[in-house]
């Protein structure tokens, strides 16, 4: 699905979003989770928006996963998803943050403090 089956794609990515790659309010991350809100789908959605809703019918996906399934660049899917979130058709959840490494300086200072207490 990732390989382009037909060579050069006939339909460019910008058509999916009507030419925009910016969303005024919402900024989704690559690993933001998307899921359906369960509201009935209104009229007047673009084909790409309907396609994204379809992909999410089975459950939650991250934005990049949806982008791969839709064969669109991430920047386009981000806008599509943000528009759907605006219309309350999607619910988004911030990406689960990866565990961070502790600051070695802080650890060292804590260790020093403990040692100082001991003495």
């Amino acid at each position, binding site marked *: 699905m990732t390989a382009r089956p037909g060579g050069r794609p*006939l339909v460019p990515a910008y058509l999916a979003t009507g030419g925009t790659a910016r969303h005024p309010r919402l900024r989704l991350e690559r690993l933001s989770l998307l899921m359906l809100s369960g509201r009935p789908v209104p009229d007047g959605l673009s*084909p790409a928006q309907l396609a994204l809703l379809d992909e999410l019918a089975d459950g939650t996906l991250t934005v990049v996963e949806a982008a791969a399934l839709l064969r669109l660049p991430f920047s386009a899917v981000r806008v599509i998803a943000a528009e759907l979130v605006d219309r309350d058709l999607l619910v988004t959840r911030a990406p689960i943050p990866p565990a961070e490494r502790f600051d070695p300086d802080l650890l060292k200072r804590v260790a020093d403090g403990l040692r100082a207490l001991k003495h």
Partner: protein
Amino acid sequence: MTVCTVLRAPLHGPLPHPPALWNRFMIELPDLVAGGLAAGTLSALALGGGLLHSRRRLARQQAESAALRGRLDETLRALTAEVEHLAARRLPAAARALAHPHVTVPGPLHPQTAGSPLGHALDGVLQALRVELAAQQVRVDAAAQAGMRGATREIQAALYRLQDALRGLQQRYDDPELAQTLFELDHENEQSLRRAQVAAVVCGAWVGLAREESHLVDAVTGGQSRLAGFRRVSVHNHLRPGTALVSHAVEPVAIITAELLDNALRHSAPDTEVIVSLEHVHHGVCVTVDDAGVGMTRDERERAQRLVAGRDPILLTDLGDPPRMGLAAIGQLTRQFDLTVDVSSTSPYGGVRAVLRVAEHLLSHIDPAERPPAVSAPRSTRENAPDQPEQAVRAPAADAPDDTGPAAPADGARAVPALPVSGAPVHAYGTELPGAASGDVPAHDDDRRDTGGLPRRRRRTPTTAAAADVPAPRGVAPQPPERAAAALGALQSGTAAARAGSTPETAEPTNDTENEGETAR
């Protein structure tokens, strides 16, 4: 004559002196003199008369020849004037008329020349000039086209490379500002590509890109994306899912659609929509482009129809300055690829209706489950007419929203406007869905409740995989191993029996299959 000799004898010869003779002579002399004189006078009169006569004739002839010379001079002057008129007026006009048909070539200076041999000769000069000029024009144009073909081909190739680079960047970078710029550049690039490609096609080049079999709606949407005003175009796809174009027709259809749309967008107000509809017709598919613009005059329409029919060879010099290549390119493509374009009718929206007809032999079929059309291509209004039953499989998955629904109750008040959730089916595409008409079919009922009555795209491979394992945990209780074994045994014996006694009796195999069916159940 005799008179003369008689007269001369006494004057010059020695006088005869015999008296008798002399006497007689003397007597007869007056008579002779009188006779001679009379004869002389007569002859003089005759001579004078002749002289006078010839004088008069000469004078008459002179007058006549003078008149003739005068007429000759006049004719010569007229001829000169005619030739001058030919050189000064008629030849330039005839040359201009080749390029501008509305220029009228003046007739000869004197109307009476028209039917004369001179008139014919002069017309021959004009005709020869026309023939030679036309041939010259074709030669020059062919040279110009060859030059332009070479140049545009290079440009086209460069733009395709640029497109690849831009799309690579689109995949790689996701900063919104940068992505926006990349989208804009991609769009600009598409427009430049379209122009280069159209110029190349007008000059007789190949479309410049080999594509493989593609969905027809993709070709149309691809054509749409090549225009500055693509947002004003709305495509209505009434084709059966999977309607596709054979490989060599893909790019021509995209180009023709783009050019028809460009015309429509150019000649309609910026706040109006251009409607494209894709429909099956007898022996093919029609792409209809309607605009709500000002339409064309009869002359324009005739010219456009002549151009798109592609019967006459194209001369760059005919295309105006700046050259309007769109229709000419359509003409080239319709001729080369056996497509039909008609621009002769008016649109119900007031503007022009352009219809591209793709004949059956240029169509093929792609399984939409295997290779779906592009995500941004409009869905077919017929999409889920044939696969209603399959949606039932998806129902469990679509149940999920019921759980998450209450998650956002605060927004309930401004929930999606005016949508009866479980009432009459509402869908965006039209009313021809069989499921929508028969509301009392229970199998579809809950399905429609889940999807809000909207036609949903069928799931592809992931769902079928899911569909395989969904029924096992849910509906059906796990089979005891004995029953499974019995089913398999029945299947095996059934096939064995069928193989062994393929011809003799038909009763047994049917029995077997019944058995198998029952045990399987």
